[in-house]
């Protein structure tokens, strides 16, 4: 399924103080369900999808504050989606955190070059630690670092 064309109207971010919305793109069913469960429970409503195409579709129709993006997806390379998100002016402010597993240093480096804000190693973190990392990333966004 070809990726959707970006939205024509620029997306307006939700009013300040509203609940942050998360997008999770992860093809492993058990992991995806578990992360969504924990994020929802932590007060971070999450839309979860198993393929890159569904993910892009969601991005085109909804606003997200943070995207958890698996790199190894069945239909596409996670970095491709990252690129599209970061190149589209309507979505490039969205925080993108890559979900990886060990032994992918070169991909991680490339991810940062493409604009990813961070990465999480699935095998090293418990789901609750993942939730904490997401909260940290969102907090960083609210209070941007002081300019040098």
């Amino acid at each position: 399924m070809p990726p959707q064309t970006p939205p024509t109207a620029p997306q307006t971010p939700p009013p300040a103080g509203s609940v942050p919305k998360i997008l999770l793109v992860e093809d492993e069913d058990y992991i995806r369900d578990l992360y969504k469960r924990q994020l929802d429970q932590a007060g971070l409503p999450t839309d979860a999808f198993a393929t890159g195409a569904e993910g892009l579709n969601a991005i085109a129709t909804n606003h997200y504050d943070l995207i958890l993006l698996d790199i190894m997806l069945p239909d596409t390379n996670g970095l491709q989606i990252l690129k599209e998100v970061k190149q589209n002016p309507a979505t490039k402010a969205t925080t993108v955190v890559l979900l990886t597993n060990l032994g992918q240093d070169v991909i991680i480096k490339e991810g940062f070059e493409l604009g990813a804000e961070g990465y999480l190693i699935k095998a090293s973190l418990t789901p609750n630690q993942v939730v904490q990392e997401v909260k940290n990333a969102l907090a960083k966004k609210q209070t941007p670092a002081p300019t040098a």
Partner: protein
Amino acid sequence: MPAPKDSSVRTKTSLTTKTSLLFASIAAIPAIITTVLFLLSFGAQIKDSPMLLGLVLAINLIYISLASWAAARFLLRPILELYQASFYLKKGDFSHRLTIKTGDEIEEVADTFNLIAANLTQVFQRLNQERTVLVNQSSKAEAVLSTIPDAVIAVDLNRNINFFNKAAENLTGFSTIQVLGKPISSIFKIFDKKDEISPLTYCPISTTNSDSMLFSRENLELDSGQKQAFVNLTARQIKGGASHNLGCIMTLHDITREKQLEAMKMDFVSMAAHELRTPLTSIKGYLSVFVQENEHKFNPDQMMFLTRIGLSTQQLLNLVENLLNVSRVERGTFSVFRQPIDWIDLVKHSVNDLTNRAREKKITLQYVDSGIAHLSVEADKLKIVEVLNNLIANAINYTHSGGTIWVWVEVGNQEAITHIRDTGIGVPKQALPHLFSKFFRAHDKLEMIKGTGLGLYISKAIVELHHGKIWVQSEQGKGSVFSFSLPISNHNF
């Protein structure tokens, strides 16, 4: 003092004057004889008329002067023209041509002058053309050499650098001016895996001018202190170069990027590891959430069951990682990509990360400040952290509750040495020589063992690929000190 007269004018006058006087003196003799005869014949009348005498004398003088001067001028003019033409030649102006048509030897000399001038003009024209061609060829060669993506380096018979192209500058981080004339060994080192290769091997120069010697090897590591890269190196002795003091010419093809991509490539073991990780991550994740949400419902015995399931899962995960790394080390596809990193910072970080784990066992884990604030080493951050964590985790695992672990860094000869000391159970003497080999475990006390015995083997491989060393000092029952060295980087933070 008045300015000297233009020498040409002065000379011209003197030559003309000299010749005039010569003619005058020659002409004077018949003039005087004629006058004397005239006087003898008509002397009586003239004796009475001194005015007539004076007139005769005056006429003679005027005639002699004018005639001599005119004769001199007539004879000398072509010669003086030659003289002037010589000035043009002296100045380097070969365009001037003489037009002397006296029909005598002077005309011939003038023609020769013109011929010489014409020849010289041609010669200079040809030389200019040849020079333009050479300059063009030289800039063409330069343009080509500076656009070649491979580094091209030429050395003289003493292996001092005498040519260094733009790509070589990029590869080594040194500029041409910095390296010209310096021995190649002072600019960079070449390694094949962890063994250094001497310039005598990779830059072949022999005194016998027979078949040019060739060195060609792939997957070598270049370390210039400023930069590291993986290269394919081809070197050849320059045939007939001895007469021009040219020894050997090398091409270095940078394969760092290709190697990085290669390292990522999924071979069977990598794919297997990935497949194994997935369900293990699920088990770990679901168990962790389940325990956290239901802790209060379980009695200690039930908790112990769940805890052990969790620990075993973690062991499996570690084992998968270690097996993958061992496979890579064996197959030679394990590479480290080094960059300057702040070592002190990193060590402190690792100690921090493992402090909780130590605390769980009531072990004191501390970083001992040796007064070094920042230290820059060339290392692959992710991999070297693995080594550090492995050594500290081992120390925690093999130390009883209440023990202490110290971590500190000292600076040696161009290297940073990191020590991890514990008050644990130590290593028995017979186990010491086998400690860093595969699958060797010093003790069989199951409740203490969390590692798989692979950690030290991989740590050794990583440290050696960093061109460092790893070693241990230990006494059974007293504790151990594990140490490893890393080369210091020139980079300043």
